[in-house]
């Protein structure tokens, strides 16, 4: 297969920027697409050409396979990179690319179909000899309660078409089951266009560990080590790191081995991730993410492999440029996802216009961002704004660098997850590495400050004084500074002492 010359990026935000950068490094021409509200976005500015989509509604643009293939053809692109989310794991889209003679950067349509059907993926894991949790095939509403009783509570209701943390509902007891089942089906129908759900045993305190794999057209599979992703809210990740802390060499090897076997069983191609739950010394397969993942960056930091560039090279038919023996992970990397959500209000989406943004930099700090000043954060898109990744020879140093980066970073106009991240990086459980998926629950509605109230009062007073009066010093002599602060109101200001 010939080299890729021009790639259309069927995505937005930070991942579109990330793919553009990989294209540049390989001498490939990147073509962007953008919604009407995104004309000033970084991915539009950085691409060689940018094609407008008809509407912000994803169904009309980023989720429209026919339109995107057509735009790629008209732009004379020889490949489409789908990023993550949207159509990244959509077999119909991959097949439409094939039919149009356009290379889809990812696994084949049939592999996507098997990975996307979570029940089929489970079956593949079983065939590969990977351990799985007790669970069901897709269940009908009429038989759901019977199955639920058999598995026992608490349990998870998972969308067959879900993944990436979406479409999962935890049910604690029989009483909440019917309502949750109904909600889960409704959400699955709107979010994935497939209302089927299945049930799975719930583990109380698992750790979420996943293995990055890459595979070439000849079927060679290599793993690039694991990532820990246990800092989650609503089953969505907030902080990831590589390598996984508090995992011994034996378990690490078993995870990697299971991941490679599952990938071989599936006939996997390109980059992908095999996700596991770890409970003590046991691990259980949960799903395959058949795409580049948000948190691929930490693996890039520890292995030195540019995963997105590798995706493009593998899609062009190149063989894997390294053997398993040549992969060596070094140091420690952490990623914090900066999302437009209010961590002090249950991580509800925070919509608005970004009116200021300063991104951190410096030794060991990488920022992948799609943010621009003037950006309207709308309900149509995922709330992820940017990712901060820090890397250092040791985990402690990577944590210190992340604290530094979070102190430098400022985003104005919407609420972000940064207060949560600042809290998380001070928690003993995080620092020791012994945390599990319950970690973020301890945040609650945010730390209850007491002496902080005094500081908040001081800041509020200073902010108010600064905004309402010109704080210039009087030219005449040296009167009491308390009087001087009154500005225009000076005549009425009561004297102190």
């Amino acid at each position, binding site marked *: 297969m010939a080299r890729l010359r021009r790639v259309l990026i069927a995505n937005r935000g930070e991942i579109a920027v990330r793919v553009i950068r990989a294209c540049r490094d390989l001498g490939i021409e990147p073509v962007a697409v953008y919604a009407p509200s995104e004309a000033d976005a970084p991915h539009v500015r950085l691409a060689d050409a940018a094609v407008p989509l008809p509407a912000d509604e994803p169904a009309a643009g980023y989720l429209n396979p026919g339109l995107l293939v057509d735009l790629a053809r008209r732009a004379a692109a020889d490949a489409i990179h789908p990023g993550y989310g949207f159509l990244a794991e959509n077999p119909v889209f991959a097949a439409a690319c094939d039919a149009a003679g356009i290379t889809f950067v990812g696994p084949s349509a049939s592999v996507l179909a098997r990975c996307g059907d979570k029940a089929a993926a489970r079956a593949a894991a079983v065939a590969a000899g990977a351990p799985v949790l007790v669970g069901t095939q897709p269940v009908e509403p009429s038989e759901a309660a019977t199955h639920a009783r058999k598995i026992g509570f608490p349990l998870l209701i998972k969308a067959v078409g879900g993944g990436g943390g979406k479409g999962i509902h935890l049910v604690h007891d029989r009483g909440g089951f019917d309502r949750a089942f109904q909600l889960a089906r409704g959400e699955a129908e709107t979010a994935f266009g497939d209302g089927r759900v299945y049930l799975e045993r719930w583990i109380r305190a698992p750790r979420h560990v996943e293995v990055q794999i890459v595979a070439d057209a000849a079927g060679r599979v290599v793993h690039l080590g694991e990532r820990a992703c246990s800092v989650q809210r609503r089953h969505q990740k907030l902080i990831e790191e590589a390598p996984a802390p508090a995992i011994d060499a034996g378990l690490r090897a078993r995870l990697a081995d299971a991941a490679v076997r599952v990938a071989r069983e599936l006939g996997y191609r390109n980059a992908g991730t095999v996700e596991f739950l770890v409970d003590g010394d046991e691990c259980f397969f949960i799903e395959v993410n058949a795409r580049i993942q948000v948190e691929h960056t930490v693996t890039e930091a520890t292995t030195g492999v540019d995963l997105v560039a590798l995706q493009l090279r593998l899609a062009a038919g190149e063989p894997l440029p390294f053997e398993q023996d040549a992969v060596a992970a070094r140091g420690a990397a952490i990623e914090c996802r900066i999302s437009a959500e209010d961590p002090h209000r249950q991580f509800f989406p925070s919509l608005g216009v970004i009116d200021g943004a300063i991104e951190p930099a410096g030794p060991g700090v990488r920022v992948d961002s799609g943010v621009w000043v003037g950006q309207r954060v709308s309900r149509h898109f995922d709330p992820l704004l940017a990712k901060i990744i820090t890397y250092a020879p040791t985990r402690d140093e990577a944590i210190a660098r992340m604290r530094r980066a979070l102190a430098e970073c*400022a985003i104005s106009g919407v609420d972000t997850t940064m207060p949560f991240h600042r809290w998380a990086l001070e928690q003993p459980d995080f620092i020791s590495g012994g945390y599990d998926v319950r970690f973020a629950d301890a945040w609650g509605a945010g730390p209850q400050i007491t002496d902080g*109230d005094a500081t908040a009062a001081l800041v509020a007073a200073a902010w*108010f004084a600064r905004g309402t009066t010109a704080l210039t010093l009087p030219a005449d002599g040296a009167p009491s500074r308390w009087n001087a602060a009154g500005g225009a109101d000076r005549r009425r200001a009561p004297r102190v002492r």
Partner: protein
Amino acid sequence: MKVEVVVRGARRVVEVAPLDDGCAGVAGGMLVRDGEAEQRVRLEPVAGSECWRVVVDGSAVPARVIRTETGAEIVLGASRVAVDVRRALPIPSRRAGASGGSDRVEVRAPMPGLVIAIPRSAGETVEAGSPVAVVEAMKMQMDVAAPASGRVEEIRVRPGQEVMGGQVLVAIRSDGAVRGEGA
């Protein structure tokens, strides 16, 4: 100047004065006195209107100050608190709107989004904590729970309607049983 600050119901009168100690980098520095405690506070704008680097007695904290109708919401490091701020008047004024005993509870949209369902009709009774609306945004559906039990008095929105964050969805005539957790 004297500034009246109310944090979590506690009222303080804080005095603010510009700082002129001749040190480098004190531009915008202020001396803030809260009772006996005197502290140096410096607010450095970071990005646009809301973000500040706040230096309180020599240690820097990233902050956001979001203007509200009665003052500001202040995000300091990992914390967030709502603060009422105004110029202190010589005679303390009485705060308006001290709980008047109204038992009408308005249930507001927690975020902008699309109303998916309103499971109750007007006149029906609801339990505190049970859903009175389902709102979807960013591909997530969320139950909006009744903060108090009572009778649904009014329904302001219909399924399929786009709503703003904070928009009233449903009003409940409360029977007095309020849910423990803050809405």
